């Protein structure tokens, strides 16, 4: 009997949550919007997502092998990165793009910096930023037109290049509100169809409803908390309302939240554990910062959608925010802090 017992440090019971479980749950939450996008845009979407996920996992495995680290592809973090990257690139791009993006996101963005937990920027968004810089035309134009019937098979019939269109935010930015209304309908119709997902854009920009549902599920599972999404969307709404209209206080906050990647960013991108602050106050500031930068880039910047860059810009600040908003200690020692 002696010596057979297994010794380890306390605590001897652990909660049933694990990194693997969290990552794969988040991936699972992204599946419904993906399936809806397949229905809206066609099978091409599924292929792009598949290539993205597989290449991210492959790059993860290869880089871990090459760097002599334990291979942890199974923990799902690479799969999640792949999934998210597919959600933020136009569905009509060539398959080469997600593969290149995976190299940037996983190898350069993550493993060179020390692997999971040490990346400074959100890998998926880093991949997207890289692709946007490298293939500016494809990344800003390869939007598919949402199809109403038999979409799944249309890819095989028509090919991809034939059907491209502009995203709602791009129309809004480049052609103004009037053109936007003309193309996408009156506000009352827009809200509903945008919320459901009938609009051009990347996968992550389509169905607000499914994204929100997934996000709420993650909140219910306590994988994410309300702090980042609420402060982020609240700031976007507030600032758009104040500055987004022709005069002050006439912007359309609801439209700002529903269009573009605001919802995906708020629930899935900004809440990425590694690159967001841990303290709750820090998270609120972080979310508000992303929201403000998003509105800044949308209204004044060079891109129609700003949330991706806004998150990237706030990522390095998360360490700073954690330093500024340390958790409150139980009680200071007598005589105060040293």
């Amino acid at each position, binding site marked *: 009997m*002696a010596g057979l*017992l297994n010794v380890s440090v306390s605590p*001897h*019971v652990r909660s049933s*949550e*694990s990194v693997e479980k969290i990552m794969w749950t988040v991936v699972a939450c992204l599946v419904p919007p993906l399936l809806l996008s397949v229905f809206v845009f066609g099978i091409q979407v599924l292929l792009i997502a598949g290539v993205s996920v597989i290449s991210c996992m492959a790059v993860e495995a290869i880089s871990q092998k090459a760097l002599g680290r334990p291979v942890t592809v199974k923990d799902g973090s690479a799969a999640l990165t792949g999934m998210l990257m597919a959600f933020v690139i136009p569905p009509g791009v060539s398959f080469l793009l997600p593969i290149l993006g995976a190299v940037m996101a996983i190898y350069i963005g993550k493993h060179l910096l020390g692997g999971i*937990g040490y990346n400074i920027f959100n890998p998926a968004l880093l991949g997207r930023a890289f692709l946007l810089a490298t293939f500016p035309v494809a990344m800003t134009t390869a939007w598919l037109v949402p199809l109403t019937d038999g979409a799944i098979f249309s890819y095989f019939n028509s090919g991809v290049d034939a059907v491209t269109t502009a995203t709602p935010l791009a129309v809004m930015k480049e052609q103004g509100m009037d053109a936007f209304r003309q193309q996408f309908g009156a506000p009352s119709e827009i809200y509903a169809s945008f919320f459901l997902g009938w609009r051009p854009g990347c996968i992550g920009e389509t169905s607000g409803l499914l994204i929100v549902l997934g996000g709420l599920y993650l909140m219910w599972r306590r994988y994410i908390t309300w702090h980042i999404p609420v402060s982020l969307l609240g700031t976007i709404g507030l600032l758009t309302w104040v500055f987004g209209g022709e005069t002050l206080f006439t912007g359309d906050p609801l439209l700002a939240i529903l269009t573009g990647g605001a919802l995906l960013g708020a629930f899935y991108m900004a809440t990425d554990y590694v690159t967001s602050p*841990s303290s709750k106050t820090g998270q609120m500031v972080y979310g508000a910062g992303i929201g403000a930068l998003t509105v800044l880039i949308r209204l004044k910047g060079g891109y129609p959608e700003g949330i991706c860059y806004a998150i990237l810009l706030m990522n390095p600040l998360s360490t700073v925010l954690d330093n500024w908003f340390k958790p409150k200690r139980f009680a200071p020692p007598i005589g105060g802090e040293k």
Partner: protein
Amino acid sequence: MAPTLTFPKGGVHPPESKKLTENLAVEVMPLPAELEIILGQHIGAPCAATVAKRAEVSEGDLIGEVSKGLGVPLHAPASGKVKAVGNSGHPVRVSAPSVTITVDQEAPDKQYQPRDWQNDTSQELLKRVHDAGIIGIGGAGFPTHVKLKPPSDNPVDTLLLNGAECEPYITADHRAMLEMAPEIVEGAKILLKILGITNCVIGIENNKPDAIKMMTDAANGTAGDGFSITVQPLEVKYPQGSEKQLIQAITGRKVPAMALPSAVGVVVHNVSTTKAVYDAVVLEKPLVEKVVTISGKGINRPANLLVKVGTKLIDIVEFCGGVKPDLSRVVMGGPMMGFAVSDLNIPISKTTSSVLFLTDEEIDANPLSACIRCGWCLDACPMGLEPKEIGVFVEGNRAEDTEQFGVFECFECGSCAYVCPAKRPLVQFVRLAKMKAKRS
């Protein structure tokens, strides 16, 4: 019933697993053939043995004493013959000096008669507590008489009795409260007299409604003799039983970092310690036995046992019908803060409140991975520390720089490690960090 209270920050709620033993009455375990009494059972200087090899001892005889410094004497748990003054297994230090007694199974049970303590002065009472070798048997092992002499510049106004028993599995205090409520209340009165105060609150987590009821009834019985003893139900949350958290939950006062509860006018004692105080003062019985919860899915017959200090685990296992084949880990103490032992030749000490026989199903043996900075440990830490940073710094060979994260305020409750999805051994990191930070 009074509203339930709890501490505001941090804490976790692991599965309670108390069903296994909470309805089992305390059983008296028969004397084993041999007892090994470790000489250093309390915080402070270990005892020096006062008996030599082959000396005859009877139950309650002094076998060890502290000549100088913090400490309490040690007594023979049973009559018999000193087999050796040497070393025996220890859950933390692997081996430690001890006195081994071959039990004389024929010796008659020692009888204790209650006496009236009301006329004793508090000085006399305090001496009895010391002489009986009483220490905090909830787990800390801090000599009780020291706690009862708070520094004069911090007047104490409240005595808290800790009946929270927040660790999963353990039901020793629960059973003690059910079966010995009047004795505990009597013990509380003794403590109040020693402290020279009248106010006492007994904190009990409300997963033990029967204990709350028993204790309330017992406390109500004391109304009218000048003491105010009440029962305070507490929300079920770990680590409610930690002194600082308990004090905050019940009184709302915050004990400053690196300070004792007396700094905020409170003294905390475990309910079982209080029972031991009763035994020492009323029955003049030294602390030689205690209630230990034997639980976990790896033991055939879980039980709440009254065992002699020095009983070896192997004897307990035998008494409880042996272990199951899928046993994976034996833990002395609670699953959150206890120590896993490598073999069963380790004796029960005064501070052992439970021995758990855990199977793979109960423990989580997932390998650790890198910190993903989810921040769950920040939410779980009742002390408002940053365990993830401590872990990352220790891994990055910068353990000596962890004082900025308050590593010395950590009392290693294990809440952070419990919630960690990356299964990181945060408590171990903290211990390492403390060692290195102290050195630098």
